[in-house]
């Protein structure tokens, strides 16, 4: 599996992951697009948290809306989440 963009909202590298701009992740999707989640990346705490909120491998995620500067709204099954783009970038997908 490829390395994933991991950055926090200030654009710094987090937890040893390098920022790469050519990797497909949830933040690359546009409104109305869907994709399959293939992994969640980050420290244990972050991964744990995102997974507990429903962002697990094998689930289908749909982008309901994205605000230009702010967060995105993602639907996974019956759950609607709002998350920042930088956090969405922790979620790798396959389309």
């Amino acid at each position, binding site marked *: 599996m490829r390395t994933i963009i991991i950055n926090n909202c200030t654009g710094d590298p987090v937890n040893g992951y390098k920022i790469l701009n050519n990797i497909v992740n949830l933040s690359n999707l546009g409104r109305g697009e869907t994709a399959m989640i293939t992994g969640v990346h980050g420290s244990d705490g972050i991964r744990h948290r*995102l997974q507990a909120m429903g962002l697990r491998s094998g689930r289908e995620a749909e982008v309901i809306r994205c605000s230009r500067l702010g967060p995105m709204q993602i639907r996974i*099954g019956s759950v609607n989440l709002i998350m920042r783009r930088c956090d969405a970038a922790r979620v790798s997908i396959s389309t």
Partner: protein
Amino acid sequence: MKRLAIVGMPNTGKSTFFNRLTGSSSRVGNWPGVTVDLLGARVVLGSDAVEVIDLPGIYDLHGFSDDEQVVRSFLENNSVDLVGVILNATQLDHQLPMALQICQLGMNSVILINMIDEAEQLGVRIDAQALSKEIKCPVVLLSARNGTGFHEARDVLATAVHNSEPLSLDRLRSSLHVDDELVEHAGHLVSRHVRAPGKLVRKVTERIDNVLLHPVLGLPLFFLTMFLVFQAVYTFGAPLQDAVAFILGSFRDWALVPLAGVLPPTLYGFLVEGLYDGIGTVASFVPVIILFFFFMAIVEDSGYLARAAFLTDALMARMGLDGRGFVMLLMGFGCNVPALMGTRVMRSRSMRLLSMLVIPFSLCAARLQVFIFITTALFTPQQAPLILFFLYLASFSAAFLTAAVFSRRLKSDEPFVLELPPYRQPILKQVLLRGWHEISHFLRRASTFIITGVVLVWVLTHFPAGSTPGGSGTYASILGQWMLPVLEPIGISPDMSVILLFGFVAKEIVIGALVAMTGLEGGALTGYLATQMDSIQAISFMLFVLLYVPCLSTLATQLNESRSWKFAGISLGWSLGLAWLVSFCFYQTARLLGY
């Protein structure tokens, strides 16, 4: 006494169920091993007296957030006979793993699948019996909102709690389990026992969101909503405050003064001029606080709070805060204390601390009272609203400045992920109960502060014995003289500096302290104020009052929630310094310009 803990994810109607089960008998309290207050109540279930505790909403028993740690350490330090796990029927695939976690810990549990009314509307069918049989744990379908299945749930809980033994805490501590298997297991269970349409479509919610989360209209609508909430609170609140003041005043004049007249002067002064007037000042806030939480609960329960976070996050992210921080900042304009407690929704400690540093700059209702009093007394009706607007502006600026200064130190890599619940009609009883909890909390907290504060003022202004009340020679004026070198450059007179001392205890007593200190009321007090400061001094004084220190309760809450003396100390030092600097710059500049 048996003990029943209610556990569930956020947005499962956990509190609705808890309130239906316990009525209004619940109150906030402390439990061993847990550093935050929890809501608990004693009820009779079947033949047993049971203590029911509402634990914070969590996504995962093994998680790393404060709330998750609170739940874990509660379960580890308090013997629990039964756990009621509340699940949202429309999201079983998402929620069942946590229920399985709890069952697997070997805890006696009852699974309460809530919001069955919503699930049925969406076409979800759940085979509770088969599910119960397979996971070997009672499963009840109910709607805490409309009461469907509630009595059955109550009966099942009663039976289960009657037959249960508390789990050995050692065993609990040692049995933790990997989640992935549970998720898989939950998936199998859902596919076998739950029939749901492939996609749950909530047409109403989607339609409302298309308007309220509109890229252009969303933010103006958000500010309009907040504006309307505050208008409603203060439009309805003002006449109610007057009514409370009238009732208290009448009681004082008709009953208290004649009755207490027989007492020795010192005791009379203490009772009537100190204690009763102080209590009256607090009482006048009751309507505004009830109204504030009434409307805030509607905003929260309807699901709009999460939308507000979505809308304001773009702005807040830049300051190192998140959208919830902004909502709490706005909540802080009612009262800082609940807003500080509300920061618990933030999972990251550093972001929480940052929000807790920022919130005390929100111009709360107590400070507003002081400002309204002073602006009404010293400015024309045309000027007064402008001054108030200026103070609100200063409040926001101080908050943003604080966030900008501290965001580097308190940096967070916590993900900002928030569930967006569907819109729901708030339940009147819930909204009222929320107001009741908040007001009883406020009164318990405030009454101590008021009594201490006002008695202190009274002693300081009336002793040593023989001195003129409030005049020179009293302890109060000696204190004022001491503080002169610091406060003179910002235009605050020694008498007013005594008032600042009491504003530290609680802003609510500032006006009461003025009354107690001067022995004046109404027009006479206004006249006295005019002798103490001109308009520039008044603005400088109000800027200082706005920023210098949150009240003692806010400070106590900061200490409580952060569990760090250092943090509370930094917050105190920062706000004192900022207040002095801002007032100094304003006062000296205004004087230089010849005002």
